[in-house]
């Protein structure tokens, strides 16, 4: 089963370099505040700028909640991220959905930013596999989520 990727494009009045920097290094400053999976509001959203770098949110107490990691790092044209958040709103190190960002110079002072969030069927496969493994054991399965919520 394949699920259609989420694709979005937006043209921004900036160079690819600026757009890439803003997307990767300054996410804390524009990421919607209520789009978080942690128990508390984030103070920072951090993307470590290299392949294998972690992508996480950090709250005011310094608690880090992982979101994913960097799979490919090709500034200023492209960055490929693993979004490792399942349908249960919890980070899952075994789940990898892919967010590919490209930044294309349009030659008129703008950059076309394209987002493609794909491999979403892995969310379902993963959830189903865990559900099968644990029978109706969602409470146990989602202990990780509860831990986040109680943190």
């Amino acid at each position: 089963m394949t699920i259609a990727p989420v694709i979005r494009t937006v043209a921004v009045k900036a160079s690819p370099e600026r757009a890439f920097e803003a997307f990767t290094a300054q996410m804390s400053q524009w990421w919607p505040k209520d789009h978080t999976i942690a128990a508390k509001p984030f103070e920072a959203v951090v993307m470590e700028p290299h392949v294998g770098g972690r992508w996480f949110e950090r709250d005011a107490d310094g608690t880090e909640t992982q979101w994913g990691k960097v799979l490919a790092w090709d500034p200023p044209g492209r960055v490929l991220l693993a979004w490792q958040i399942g349908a249960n709103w919890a980070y899952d190190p075994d789940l990898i959905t892919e967010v590919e960002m490209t930044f294309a110079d349009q030659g008129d002072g703008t950059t076309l930013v394209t987002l493609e969030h794909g491999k979403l069927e892995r969310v379902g496969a993963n959830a189903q596999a865990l559900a099968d493994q644990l029978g109706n054991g969602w409470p146990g399965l989602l202990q990780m989520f509860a831990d986040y919520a109680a943190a």
Partner: protein
Amino acid sequence: MAALGDPTRREIFERLAAAPSSVGALAANLPVSRPAVSQHLRVLKEAGLVSETPDGARRVYRIDPRGIGAMRDWLDQHWDRALAAFKDFVETPEDPAE
């Protein structure tokens, strides 16, 4: 579809993620009425996010692991908002935080 766009529904969804529950048990721990909880559960169910199973006279709600379609819809909206915010930020000439 904005099944998870509503804060109360999101809260209900998160509680069901922690443990399956009945309408009554959910309502007892939320500042909303039982009929309101039922209505929210109906929306979540239609979105494929939760399923219900009978347990004697009551019905128990739990997260539906096949709620992938709803997850995708949430992401769809999420990226819309996030990229709009991103565009605003990038195009702001002076960055007061730097």
